[in-house]
């Protein structure tokens, strides 16, 4: 039997949401020592005792150390395991909710709904979650302006990642699913995969936010959704990740394949690291690997509506080549080779709105220009080589911060008046953990990659701007009294080297 996950805004999902609320209320009454409790499950993603305590979530008596070692702090981020791990996580969560719902007299067909914030009519927090009388309401959910009003600002998120041709990428071009985790010998663990960055990280920061007019560098001012160590406590977390999962299902449905590399298929357990494992309602422990997470039908669920395949457009848009299963399979483990084309100076502060000149190397800029000219001239539409803007090693403590990144806004004009120059948005979800030098990221912070092929295409088509340097404008969502303490090592431009 296949359970169908519904759009939370669909009237048919009203009952689903009601039962969700009842189950959440019941589970929140259970102590953290119990595996089938709200707090235990949230701690699987991440937990910091002192923070939870301060926020009013009881952490004692704790479960046995063996349970903590096996289950807690598992979340996979800045890694190609991001999608498969979370798929298993929400699947186990859904089982827990379903079993609770059934126990309360509800339907066996209960399935986790999703929040399709990409739909312009559905950008507000689903009403049931905004109702202070509902068990789905969370006070520590501050929204884009820090005032508790939660919505996704227009024009701030996109699903451009759906056009990515391959799953696995590199630090400069991370592609749909992200970068290989901890490959032998090499530095890794800092770059966000495309779908992880957008819309995943951004929605976390925008929904959680931080208390208006407070210091965004202090964890205690953040919303639950803003930090990996507290995010899963918020009932909206699960609908958010359900949508991310749905985007992955849609990407596969459009003919693009998951990696065939055994290192991905076997998960970290294949290298002797801790396995992905979830507690189940029947008391058992479910261990899973990414190889088992590739087909939602095999896992017993489907989505009412999958996102439409990425549309093809004019030549200045990334053109979707017809992806046949054979071709896609051949591309499955291909790593995109890139070349540095230009960079800014090092050590830039992102505490305030700032414009950073990114000097282009004449050789590299010429290659890009030639590439575009060839693509335009060719008889059949051809995609030019992609160009990426990298924000390298962003460090700081302000997890809830989100930024818009613009390229070459005409001088003297307002960036907000030029959405066509918006390269993308970034959210600093997880940045404080990535910045501590004794944390798993080794103090290297988070790196972001935004595709700017479109923008450069526009610039080259009929524009006289000098390709000698790009002017990159970075605009924080909120400018509170205390500036966020955020820096970026370097902003650079990479081109796909073919």
């Amino acid at each position: 039997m296949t359970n169908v996950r519904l759009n939370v805004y669909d009237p048919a999902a009203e009952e689903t949401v009601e039962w969700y609320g009842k189950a959440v209320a019941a589970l929140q009454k259970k102590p953290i020592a119990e595996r089938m409790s709200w707090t235990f499950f949230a701690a699987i993603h991440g937990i910091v005792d002192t923070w939870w305590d301060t926020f009013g979530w009881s952490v004692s008596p704790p479960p046995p150390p063996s349970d903590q070692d096996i289950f807690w702090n598992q979340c996979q981020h800045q890694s190609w395991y991001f999608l498969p791990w979370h798929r298993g996580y929400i699947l186990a969560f859904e089982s827990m909710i379903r079993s609770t719902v059934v126990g309360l007299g509800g339907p066996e067909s209960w399935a986790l709904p999703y929040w399709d914030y990409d739909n312009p009519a559905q950008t507000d927090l689903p009403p049931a979650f905004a109702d202070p009388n509902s068990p789905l309401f969370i006070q520590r959910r501050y929204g884009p302006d820090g005032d508790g009003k939660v919505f996704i600002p227009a024009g701030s998120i996109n699903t451009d990642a759906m056009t990515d041709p391959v799953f696995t990428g590199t630090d400069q071009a991370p592609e749909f699913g992200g970068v290989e985790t901890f490959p032998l010998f090499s530095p890794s663990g800092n770059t966000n995969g495309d779908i992880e960055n957008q819309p995943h990280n951004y929605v976390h920061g925008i929904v959680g936010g931080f208390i208006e007019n407070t210091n965004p560098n202090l964890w205690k001012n953040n919303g639950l959704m803003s930090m990996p160590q507290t995010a899963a406590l918020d009932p909206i977390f699960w609908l958010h990740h359900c949508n991310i999962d749905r985007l992955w299902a849609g990407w596969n449905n459009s003919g693009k394949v998951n990696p065939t590399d055994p290192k991905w298929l076997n998960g970290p357990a294949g290298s002797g690291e801790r396995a992905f494992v979830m507690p189940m309602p029947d008391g058992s422990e479910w261990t899973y690997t990414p190889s088992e997470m590739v087909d939602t039908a095999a896992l017993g669920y489907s989505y009412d509506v999958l996102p439409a395949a990425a549309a093809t457009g004019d030549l200045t848009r990334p053109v979707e080549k017809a992806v046949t299963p054979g071709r896609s399979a051949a591309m499955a483990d291909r790593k995109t080779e890139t070349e540095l084309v230009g960079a800014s100076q090092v050590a830039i502060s992102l505490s305030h709105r700032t414009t950073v000149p990114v000097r282009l190397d004449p050789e590299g800029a010429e290659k890009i220009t030639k590439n575009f000219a060839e693509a335009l001239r060719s008889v059949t539409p051809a995609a030019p080589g992609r160009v990426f803007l990298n924000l390298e090693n962003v460090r700081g403590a302000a997890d809830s911060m989100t930024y818009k990144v613009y390229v070459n806004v005409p001088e003297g004009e307002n960036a907000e008046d030029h959405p066509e120059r918006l390269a993308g948005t970034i959210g600093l979800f997880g940045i404080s953990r990535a910045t501590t030098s004794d944390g798993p990221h080794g103090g290297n912070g988070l790196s972001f990659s935004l595709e700017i092929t479109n923008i450069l295409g526009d610039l080259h088509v009929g524009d006289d701007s000098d390709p000698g340097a790009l002017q990159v404008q970075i605009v924080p969502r909120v400018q509170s009294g205390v500036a966020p303490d955020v820096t970026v090592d370097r902003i650079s431009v990479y081109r796909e080297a073919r």
Partner: protein
Amino acid sequence: MGRPGRRKALFAVSLAAWAAVIAEERILSLAAYCAAAAPLALGWQSFESAIRLNGAGPLAASWAIMLVAMMPPLLVAPLDYVWERSLPRRRLRSVALFLLGYGLVWLPFGVVELALVAATHAFATTSGASSLSVVMAFAFLWQISPWKQQCLNRCHRLGQLSAFGLRADGDVLRFGLAHGGWCVGACAPLMAVPLLASGAHAAVMALVALFLLGERMERAGPAGWRLRWPRYAAAASLATLRQAIAARGWPVHRKERST
């Protein structure tokens, strides 16, 4: 050159240097001399004698060859980083400057190592313990200390690299120097051990090299006093071995024999 190609090049350089280490005898004359129960070889005298016996030039060359043998696998990560973060026309130059900075820290450190070895030998002779055991005790203490972990953590730190001109040169040189410094902090005590293992010098060096490589692959972690060893590398090697055996269809247990 992609990552696999660069990796092969680094390992080829390392292997060539290992061949030179094994073929070369000079280091042994230092080790043999220091390890010998020579009651007259105290402190500065033994250091001086070692230099006179072998010649400063050849000693420096031996140290350099040891570095070229042991370091390349440990440098895959920062070299990948420098290569990928540099303009294509500057890549080789940037790599060379990084290695220059790195070498500028490690090469002179050979002198420090020699002096340390001589000092421990002096201490050992007067106290009755063997110099090898003194060095190993010190290396062990350092190994379990919080400072070792801090050095290991800093080895993961990636430098800020400008892309153009003299600034780029300066930044990558600085990165090499810094990386060399943290590497010395993490590795130097253990590197003293092979210098004293007479007769099995190359073998001990290989063991130390493997250990250091395993350590390099550990993720950064909190500093503190604890037993520290390359847990991840060991688990990964074991897992790879198991998979290789499974892939060949070799039976793990011989259960098919019936009684």
